[in-house]
């Protein structure tokens, strides 16, 4: 095991020679951002590629592509992504451009904004879900609360 020897290049190189060149490297060839287990990330975490989270992230997460939150992972941040699959815990608002998938182990505390939402039985969700596509919904939500209530009251009165 090359990383368990704490010294010298020679040892490392000897070990390296024992390894044969991999036959099929295509599977792992595409390097993406991976936050491994027992790793804590703090701050403005942004990436241009896919992100796989297995550890803890706090601050904010942003990717234009795919975000996967693995079981056991914890995100305490507002999230923006192209697509997402949540199997871990998220505390924060999720703004997903396309599809979000909540698997049975998912726990989400926050609002979700997406085009397509898929929820597996067993997933926990506490928050508001908004999706574009319903006529008038966007304009209604955009108006200030007080005036909307006023309008409603007027409607009732009529």
């Amino acid at each position, binding site marked *: 095991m090359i*990383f368990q020897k704490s010294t010298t290049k020679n040892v490392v190189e000897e070990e390296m020679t024992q390894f044969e060149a991999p036959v099929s490297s295509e599977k*792992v060839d595409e*390097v993406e951002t991976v936050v*491994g287990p027992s*790793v*804590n*990330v703090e*701050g403005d975490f*942004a990436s241009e590629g896919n992100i796989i989270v297995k*550890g803890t992230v706090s601050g904010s997460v942003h990717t234009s592509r795919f975000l996967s939150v693995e079981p056991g992972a914890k995100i305490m941040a507002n999230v923006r992504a192209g697509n997402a699959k949540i199997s871990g815990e998220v505390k924060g608002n999720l703004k997903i451009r396309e599809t979000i998938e909540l698997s049975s182990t998912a726990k989400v505390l926050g609002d979700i904004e997406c085009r397509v939402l898929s929820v597996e039985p067993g997933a926990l969700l506490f928050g508001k879900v908004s999706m574009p596509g319903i006529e008038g919904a966007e304009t209604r939500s955009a108006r200030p609360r007080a005036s909307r209530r006023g309008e409603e009251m007027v409607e009732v009165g009529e």
Partner: protein
Amino acid sequence: MYVYLYDNFLRQKKYDSVIKAVEVRLTDYGIAGKILRLNNFIDPKQVIDDEIKRGAKTVVIVGNDATFGYVLSRAATCDCTFGFLPIGQNNTISEVLGIASGVEACDVLSKRRKESLDVGWMNNRYFVSQLHVLPSKLKVVYDERFSVTTNEKMEVVVCNLQPFYWKKDKKDNAQQVVHPQDGKLEAFLRPLTKQGWWGYKYEDPSVFPFEEMEIVSDSPFTVEADGKVSKEVKVKIKLAHGKIDMIVGRNRKF
């Protein structure tokens, strides 16, 4: 004009036949040139600069990964084209460059397919293949935007050209490999978690492609860049502005 930098280990008798075959092949192609032998007291940058003044256009490194790293970490800024003739064991970079080991490498050299390669910059020197920080309590800051920490010790490997090989544990037979891409550096972080009284266990690595990162620690940690070992408290790693022109093979992995 070609200049060949031979590593010191090629003096061993077992390499005589390969060296002879390579030299014959190079003469056949008409690209034979001056041969210089490296040793611990020779600064490759000075030697290469002298040869460039005398008219050398191409400098060919003959040896293994260690030779490649040793020469290019010092002579990355030299204004010439570099070639590589991998001989012997420990040649993983040549696979990335698409250069076959031994005599076949002369064919690649003669075809002169040139590519620009990125060079990593660490504190005040270059590294070409790989930078390795041995396990210690570290904090890694990426692009001054987010930081990565672990509860226990952490090991960091930054790959530029050399692929990263790792196994989950000692018993794991399936060896995993990640090939670095050209155009950016990849950092592999492997946290260690305590197991039993003295033992430590490696976790799955985290991967972060980056342009600039800073590794800081309260206590000095060991850094190994292209075979050169040093103790540091703060390391700043980024992609160098300049690139090196390298003769590569058709089967290169970038």
